[in-house]
């Protein structure tokens, strides 16, 4: 096993299909799509449950159930039901990111200092103003930590896309295994790990930027 595949300049062409940059691009594309769809679904539900306190059993159980669901198994099930393509991959990855986003949105809202919310109402903020000007900004640190853990998980797991014929960095793993090219497998593993670190770094910077210094 060696790093020859990783450091071979031929694998870093920006234009060749199946080159590392191309695979990174498609990998990131799956990750971003899954995070966007997952956030659109999980965030409002988590905020609603956290804000009203209604259905909190759902938030907690969704978290536990989602964590124990094997993504590869779910992906195969979806492919059986829907056929090959991007949709089954996105469904499997979205199911993966929903629990951490939902539970952290819920937790962020539940752990708010109710006295601050009481003050906001008492000063004459309308319910939507209380939500957007007070509750959301205050819940942001907890919500961001959930989003970051979702992003890390999906970066690692998006490699399954290659198992059903799509691209992404999983290609290096699956193809490498298929032809006993362990240098390629190692390159895939390293790039995924580096990508995860870089993504987390970007999100950490974003968090610094959007979370008020008063909450640090």
């Amino acid at each position: 096993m060696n790093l020859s595949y990783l450091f071979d300049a031929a694998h870093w062409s920006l234009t060749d299909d199946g080159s590392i940059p191309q695979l990174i691009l498609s990998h990131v594309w799956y990750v971003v799509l899954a995070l966007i769809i997952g956030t659109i679904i999980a965030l409002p539900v988590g905020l609603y449950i956290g804000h009203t306190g209604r259905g909190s059993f759902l938030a907690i159980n969704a978290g536990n159930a989602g964590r124990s669901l094997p993504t590869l198994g779910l992906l195969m099930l979806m492919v059986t039901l829907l056929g090959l393509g991007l949709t089954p991959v996105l469904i499997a990855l979205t199911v993966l990111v929903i629990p951490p986003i939902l539970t952290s949105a819920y937790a962020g809202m539940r752990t708010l200092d109710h006295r601050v919310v009481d003050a906001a109402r008492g000063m004459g903020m309308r319910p939507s103003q209380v939500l957007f000007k007070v509750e959301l900004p205050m819940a942001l640190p907890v919500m961001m930590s959930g989003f970051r853990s979702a992003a890390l998980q999906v970066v690692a797991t998006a490699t399954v896309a290659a198992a059903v014929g799509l691209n992404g960095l999983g290609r290096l793993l699956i193809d490498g295994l298929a032809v006993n090219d362990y240098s390629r497998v190692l390159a895939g593993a390293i790039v995924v790990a580096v990508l995860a670190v870089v993504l987390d770094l970007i999100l950490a910077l974003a968090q610094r930027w959007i979370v008020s210094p008063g909450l640090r």
Partner: protein
Amino acid sequence: MITFDDVVKVYPGGSTAVDHLSLELPTGKTTVFVGPSGCGKTTSLRMINRMINPTSGRVLIDGKDVAGQDEALLRRKIGYVIQHAGLFPHRTVLDNVATVPMLLGKSRKQARTAALGLLERVGLSAEFASRYPAQLSGGQQQRVGVARALAADPPVMLMDEPFSAVDPVVREGLHREFLRLQKDLGKTIAMVTHDIDEAIKLGDVVVILRQGGKLAQIGTPQELLDHPADEFVAEFVGRDRGLRSLSFDTAAGLPVRPLTEDLVLDDAGRPIRWSSGEPTGGSFTVGDSLRLVTDLAITSPVGIAVRVDADGRADGLVPHHDLVDHLAERRAAK
């Protein structure tokens, strides 16, 4: 003027928090609701700005029923201060104070300029403006809370245990500040506290509630101390209410005796000690309360309180027994 007209609040589950409460909070005065826990004092306060709606009866501000008014618009006209201040942790001190003016449609710039002036009003220098609440002490946070409530210059202020989360020394300072501000501003203030001493110190009118949300007595602090309506009020205002009631009378009517050689003075005529070597233990002026004089007479090793003039020069003596005679006359006069 804030009017409670036969107000009842029954919570779901049947517990009665406020039981047929009728009273008036005079305009420009501080009215303090006080009572044991479960007496409905906070519930009463929160019915004024509709944080809680009464089960029956009406709450009126200047004759207008609050029930018919838009909640948010009503609350923007009423200052709101709560225990622990409840500042927005994600906003700077300045933006916390600017909150209500901005809700009312002021530009950010206008609101911030006004907020800066208010910080000064409550005794915080401009350097605090850009800090976040977590960087402030409890007492400073509470000052910001008061500034925030005052920001839109509301005629009415609600204060729910505003000073109970800070230590006694800081509280003492906040009390002084509060009295000074209120003297300037003359807001109609409704305050809740569980501390009868605080109520007596800050209130122009004190409302004592008993468990189950029933009115026990309403009156000026001195009325409550001198003429408690019943055993409950007497108990609540404390066993030492006789002594506390002395806080409201000055030493002006107190006869003094001429100085004797027993009191050693310095060149300017200020008392130093008694000739026996005992310390004087302090002195009082004409404007001080009878309570202070009594305290001096009791703690003085020779049983004599020393009166001084504005410059600190001794100008009279009050022996223990003269004070007792004076208090007896005072009692007979009431």
